């Protein structure tokens, strides 16, 4: 049964976390000496799968075979011993050490009790020459470009004797020219008989480099295809799924009044890379505008820019007839921009604090929470009780710490405190992520009702059912740009997938 030609073979891998199935009956066969790409949306289970292969997590069920032999890795150390190496998306290098020091760190060559840097240096040069990877062992890591850092990581893995390399979204951090260099290196690796597992969202890249492609969706492997047999659009359709949910046929409540108008918004990272690139759109009163896109394409930056947390380099945000780009976050909130943050634990809650203090967060400067410079404890408590009643938050009372509540109830509190304040604009980022179906339906109903009342909503989500079910208009964001303005009633999976993965953009340009 075991196939010697397969470098890695996974059968029936299942991995669940409390409340989430990350991988379900996953099957993957990677031939020795090929570049095998794994594509899928965020949350499709790619990272979990890689962690399982690399020994960081043990599967609940299923078998892992490496070169035909069944493995039960307890730690990455055991995987490394079997010749598996992983290059993480976020580099794990010490900036103030040299390339050489970083590479040997953890498996230092020694001569007696002394470190033998000479042998390390020669080995690195050897690896560099063999795989055509240009690298200076004595350069300080902090002085390197991103591409060179990545090469350092790859050499580090090879130095430890890896024959199977896992690269987690290696191109996400690179500029196009560096991507080309990486691909040259990967081909060299292949020539030398190494196996490469390559994770990416960028379908064109995948088609260019991979020998075979496995598509994951919703924690399952849905297909393994030959790149010669498919085009990017077909691949996109596989990623998104062949059927999109049908939107609810509710009456449109969109009015002509523009509530929030964004024009030419641009923001740069510290390194000068564009995070947001000429983003323009309007949200009308009574309209839900959905933002679709693979995570990390500027959604978080767009939210931060609208909230006044990220400073923009150019462009305008018009709200209530004024350009608000110079307004403080506090003023924006006081004037009626509400937010359901993407990550409720990191951005939305004070977990150790009572619910009434959590209800106050973001509204601490206005009635009924504040009376001048003072906190109005009674007002705050009464308001919290009102939120608990109206939005069905299940809790013994307003004095319970937020950490005691389930995720769904925490989210209901957050949604409730924003809704009850009756904002003009609401930014809802992943409003139902990680909560149960009942709570999800409740949140959706709230959003629909508020829209009917005239609320302008910007909905950012990775859940296509949510996006298509709620949105009046669907914008797609890719690489910090709005690349499409679609009608959720008419959109096809192929279209949506193509825009989300940048296929359509590149074809157009």
């Amino acid at each position, binding site marked *: 049964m075991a196939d010697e030609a397969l470098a890695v073979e996974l059968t029936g891998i299942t991995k669940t976390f409390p409340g989430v199935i990350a991988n379900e009956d996953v099957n993957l066969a990677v031939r020795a000496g090929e570049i095998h790409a794994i594509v899928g949306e965020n949350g499709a289970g790619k990272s979990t799968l890689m962690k399982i292969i690399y020994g960081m997590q043990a599967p609940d069920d299923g078998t892992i075979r490496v070169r035909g032999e069944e493995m039960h890795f307890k730690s990455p150390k055991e995987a490394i011993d079997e010749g598996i190496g992983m290059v993480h998306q976020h580099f794990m290098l010490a900036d103030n050490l040299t390339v050489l020091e970083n590479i040997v760190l953890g498996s230092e060559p020694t001569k007696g009790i002394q470190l033998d840097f000479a042998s390390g240096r020669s080995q690195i040069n050897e690896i560099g020459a063999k795989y055509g990877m240009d690298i200076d062992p004595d350069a300080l890591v902090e002085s390197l470009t991103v591409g060179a850092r990545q090469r350092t990581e790859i050499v580090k893995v090879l130095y430890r004797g890896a024959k199977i390399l896992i690269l987690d979204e290696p191109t996400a951090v690179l500029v196009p020219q560096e991507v080309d260099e990486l691909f040259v290196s990967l081909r060299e690796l292949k020539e030398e008989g190494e196996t490469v597992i390559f994770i990416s969202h960028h379908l064109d890249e995948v088609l260019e480099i991979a020998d075979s492609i496995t598509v994951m969706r919703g924690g399952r492997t849905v297909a393994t295809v030959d790149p010669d047999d498919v085009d990017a659009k077909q691949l996109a359709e596989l990623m998104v799924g062949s059927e999109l949910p049908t939107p609810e046929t509710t009456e449109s409540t969109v009015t002509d009044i523009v509530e929030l108008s964004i024009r030419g918004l641009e923001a740069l990272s510290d390194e000068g890379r564009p995070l947001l690139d000429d983003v323009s759109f309007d949200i009308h009163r009574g309209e839900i505008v959905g933002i679709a896109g693979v995570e990390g394409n500027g959604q978080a930056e767009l939210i931060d820019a609208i909230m006044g*947390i990220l400073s923009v380099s150019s462009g305008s945000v018009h709200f209530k007839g004024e350009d608000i780009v110079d307004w403080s976050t506090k003023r924006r909130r006081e004037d009626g921009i509400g937010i359901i943050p993407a990550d409720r634990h990191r951005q*939305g809650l004070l977990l150790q604090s009572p619910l009434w203090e959590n209800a106050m967060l973001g509204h601490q400067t206005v009635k009924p929470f504040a009376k001048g410079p003072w906190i109005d404890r009674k007002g705050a408590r009464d308001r919290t009780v009102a939120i608990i009643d109206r939005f069905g938050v299940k809790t013994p009372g307003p004095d319970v710490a937020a950490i*005691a509540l389930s995720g769904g109830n925490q989210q209901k509190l957050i949604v409730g405190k924003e809704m009850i304040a009756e904002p003009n604009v609401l930014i809802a980022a992943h409003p139902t992520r990680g909560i149960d179906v009942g709570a999800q339906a409740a949140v959706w109903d709230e959003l629909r009702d508020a829209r009917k009342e005239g609320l302008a909503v910007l909905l950012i989500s990775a859940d296509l059912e949510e996006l298509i079910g709620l949105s009046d208009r669907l914008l797609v964001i890719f690489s910090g740009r709005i690349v499409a303005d679609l009608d959720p009633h008419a959109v096809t999976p192929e279209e949506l997938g193509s825009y989300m993965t940048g296929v359509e953009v590149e074809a157009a340009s």
Partner: protein
Amino acid sequence: MNIRKMLLSLLAPAAALIFALIIAAIALWVVGRNPFDAFASMWSFGTTPTSIASMINRAIPLYIAAIAVAIGFQMGLFNIGVEGQYLLAALFAGWVGGNIGLWSPLHITIIILVAVFVGALWSGIAGFLKVTRGVHEVISTIMLNFIAFSVIAYFLLNWFRDDPTSLNLRTPVFPESGQIPDLNWIFTMFGFSEPRGIALHGFFFVAIGVGIFYYMLVKRTRFGFELRASGMNPGAARMAGVAPKKMVLVTMLISGGVAGLVGLSTMFGSLHSYTQDFPRGLGFTGIAVALLGRNSAVGMALGALLFGFMERSALILDLEDTPKEVVQIMQGVVVLAVVIAYEVVNRMIEKREIKAAAEATRSVDTSEEVTA
């Protein structure tokens, strides 16, 4: 349930204190003393009116220093510079106080304001550096301590010195109007004998005032809420419209302003000037007291009194030929033990709440089913 919660939170310091006593007993036993005799004499010596006045006098500056530190702690700022802030503040306050003569309440108020201003100015430098240049406040406040020590020596020697011919290096002594009378009458009022040779510092009331100010600021004001929110979850605070840089600067200014008051108790009550041997180290001990009292206004007061008691009652050990360093061991152990004990108790409370919330959810569910 709330009474239970209170009892649980009292459990932590009690357990820590007992643990510290055991460690101290072992230390005493190792040096060949009977721990029970030593504790007994510490207790009987430490509870005389004179000792209690001394204990409170020691506790006042520790309490104020702890509050200064705790204000920073509330938002995750570590102001190690209380030491330099209060000494520098005391120097300027001493110099100003000794050079003016006014109606007493005004005189005292001016001295206090000078101290608050200088303390805030000095900590403000650290806040400014953090906000504009990203310098970590631990580094900058430590450095500012050293700078403060040198600045003090320079000013005291060259500018603020009272009498250049005297060997006694000090600022001019406050006139009567700049002194706060002692509170020894409190003892006689309650029928105890009056402390001998020690004046219970009148600044006691100011310390209580600072404690109330701290409690109100942190628990009852919008600013205090934003302060705590920034400390607990900076990301959420930012989303909620709290400007992080402004928060850092304002917090450092308030912390330093309070720190400026630390040295004033001794100055108003007994020294009446800034002297070369002005009490030092209170800022650092204040950090320990803040940890001991878990940033709570009442907890820190108890912690400061405990430290005051231990320091005072340790004096008897010297007379009995027992190394009084045993008390320093106790001080260290009690802080460590409290930190650990609180962590344990907090987890117990948290588990309890999660269970209660889960039960409440369940009962709501079943009642819904019944009505449906």
